[in-house]
């Protein structure tokens, strides 16, 4: 315990630790605060910005906390279509018709997201026509919202470019069958922002790695390696203490960032939507999660990425002579994938890209990315969790061995 305490103090006391953490917390607060600062919404009298805009939109949603039954969808679409019958409500830009005036402000504006989600179900895979296609929808046999959703999922699974095996298709069908319908709709802006901003946590991850980089290599650089390695526990308990204190620091520091990162949007937009199904943000999402569950699942993966990256940092630190060398290797590993874009969801390049640390922070929840090993199919959450847990299991003993075998020269 004493060794862990002092190793933890060693990390914490460094001026560089305090600077890196403070700067990065400010950066995280800025990045996750930006959607609040930049938030704007429109009403008939113009634009409302910031917290006022958020409050206005939230109020608009009060009437939209509904269960999206087929009947509700049918009623909504019919109502929407009926509004087009009055020429005073309709505008035309040369390409398509759209509602204007009171019809827009009273009907469309409050439920743009809902209409968009409903309309997306009737799009073909890869098509995003938006809710302006709803007026043309044939409602003779009703909306058939859920059958249309299932049909679209089937089309997605059978898209040739996805190249999914029968086992993978069966996996997604099975997962999707667990999605509870009818879906419950409601306000979920806070969680929506969180779900779309996970990759910004990479800066927090980098900050942790910067602070951890000198754990072993700093001893070599400062010349303290000889004196600690010649101590009774220098090659045994001390190494364990260094690893534990690094993990402890990493997890605590990262959690502090998470509190800031999630705290700001949730404070501004509220925790509304935590228990709503993630499908209301993307109708074909196959995971049977609520927003909170999806957030926690992805956060769990990110923590595993964090721990594996701490493991990798410690390994490099044990093998390299200075913390700067550690960072020279580590920064590209963390940030190079930022400049690589996937060109699909299949093939070695894409499947590898989705597993690299940067991409692993993104939930990619609606992309049907799966990995097949023999007859076993893993979704992207599971494979990332397995990969980074395995990396941790591999890296930490290697880091330990690296320091134990270090030669003072």
């Amino acid at each position, binding site marked *: 315990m*004493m*060794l862990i305490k*002092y190793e933890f*103090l*060693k990390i914490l*006391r*460094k*001026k560089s630790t305090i600077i890196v953490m403070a700067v990065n917390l400010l950066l995280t607060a800025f990045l996750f605060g930006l959607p609040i600062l930049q938030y704007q919404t429109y009403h008939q009298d113009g634009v409302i910005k910031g917290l006022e805009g958020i409050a206005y939109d939230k109020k608009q949603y009060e009437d939209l906390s509904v269960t999206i039954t087929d009947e509700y969808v049918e009623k909504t679409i019919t109502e929407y279509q009926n509004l087009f019958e009055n020429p005073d409500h309709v505008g035309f830009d040369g390409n398509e018709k759209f509602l204007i005036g009171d019809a827009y402000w009273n009907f469309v504006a409050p439920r743009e997201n809902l209409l968009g989600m409903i309309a997306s179900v009737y799009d073909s895979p890869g098509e995003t026509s938006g809710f302006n296609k709803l007026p043309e929808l044939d409602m003779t046999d009703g909306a058939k919202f859920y059958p249309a959703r299932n049909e679209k999922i089937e089309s997605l699974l059978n898209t040739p470019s996805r190249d999914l095996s029968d086992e993978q298709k069966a996996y997604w069908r099975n997962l999707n069958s667990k999605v509870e319908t009818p879906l419950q709709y409601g306000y979920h802006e806070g969680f929506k922002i969180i779900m779309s901003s996970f990759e910004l946590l990479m800066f927090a991850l980098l900050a942790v790695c910067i602070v951890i980089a000198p754990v072993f290599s700093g001893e070599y*650089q*400062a*010349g*303290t*390696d*000889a*004196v*600690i*390695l*010649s*101590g*009774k*526990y*220098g*090659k*045994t*308990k*001390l190494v364990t203490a260094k690893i534990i204190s690094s993990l402890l620091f990493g997890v605590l520091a990262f959690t502090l960032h998470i509190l800031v990162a999630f705290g700001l949007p949730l404070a501004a937009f509220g925790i509304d939507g935590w228990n709503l199904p993630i499908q209301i943000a993307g109708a074909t999402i196959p995971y049977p999660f609520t927003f909170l569950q999806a957030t926690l699942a992805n956060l769990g993966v990110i923590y595993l990425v964090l721990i594996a990256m701490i493991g990798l940092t410690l390994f490099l630190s044990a093998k390299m002579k200075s913390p700067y060398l550690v960072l020279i290797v580590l920064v590209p590993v963390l940030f190079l994938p930022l400049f690589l874009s996937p060109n699909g969801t299949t093939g070695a390049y894409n499947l590898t890209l989705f597993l690299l640390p940067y991409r692993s922070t993104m939930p990619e929840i609606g992309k049907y990315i799966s990995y097949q090993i023999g007859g076993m199919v893993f979704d992207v959450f599971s494979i990332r969790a397995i990969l980074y847990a395995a990396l941790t299991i591999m890296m930490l003993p290697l880091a330990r061995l690296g320091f134990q075998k270090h*030669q*003072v*020269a």
Partner: protein
Amino acid sequence: MQLQLQDLCKQYATKCAVNHVNVNLAPGIYGLLGANGAGKTTLMRMICGVLKPTSGRILLDGKTIEELGERYYSHLGYMPQDFGFYPDFTAREFMLYMAAVKGLDTKTAKERTEQLLHMVNLHEVANKKVKSYSGGMKQRLGIAQAELNHPSILILDEPTAGLDPKERVRFRNLISDFAKEKIVILSTHIVSDVSYIADYIFMMKNGQFLLDEPMETVTDGIKGKVWEFLADNREAAQYSRHFSVVNLHHENNLVRLRIVSDTAPAANAVTVEPSLEDLFLYHFGEDAQSERSDDDAD
């Protein structure tokens, strides 16, 4: 207790830093003398188990370091040359941290820390951060940490480097106090560091022991080879070019020269009692003289 170095070698790419060293050490103070680059530090690192020998073995009471593991290290106190501290720790925190690394329980760690900080006269500044310490204070903290676990093998690598003469004397006395019933190996290229306190002298050159002798008889080999005589300034300059001059002392218009040479350097030269410094110069010649001038410059 016996520490044995058996056929110890350390080979780097092109250089043999330690070349087949064999020695048995019983409790006592061993002065390890040698010019810079002689292999002293490499040897000490191997004894401390922080550098693996290319070949050979180190045994404590017949068992190798590998066999003894943690038990070997619990016998060890090591003060490396120029080792770094944790600048953001106070001296007390550093000592408590090192006590934990050495496996002392909390109560003993606290007691030993206070005891040693008193002994090295740092107790009044024990709560100050190490980064505010002078070189001498850091050296004293260095030896204090080496003593934390009552080591039976104390390895001190150039412990007086960078200290002023007063600090050196103080340090020497400190080592003497700590040395009882221990194997103390004190490496230095400053002869006076060991001439007063060592029981045994090792001289190392090019990775090998040139000499290992008890202090009382260490200079016997150069008896009759140390000369003193007076010469004028012009002659003194010539002698300096051709002989290993231990000392030059100006007396009126003449210079008294102390020279180590197998034969009499001048007709008026008389032999004098050899010292450890004479012996050092005899073996290391110009290397030693250049280092000595470096030290003077320091």
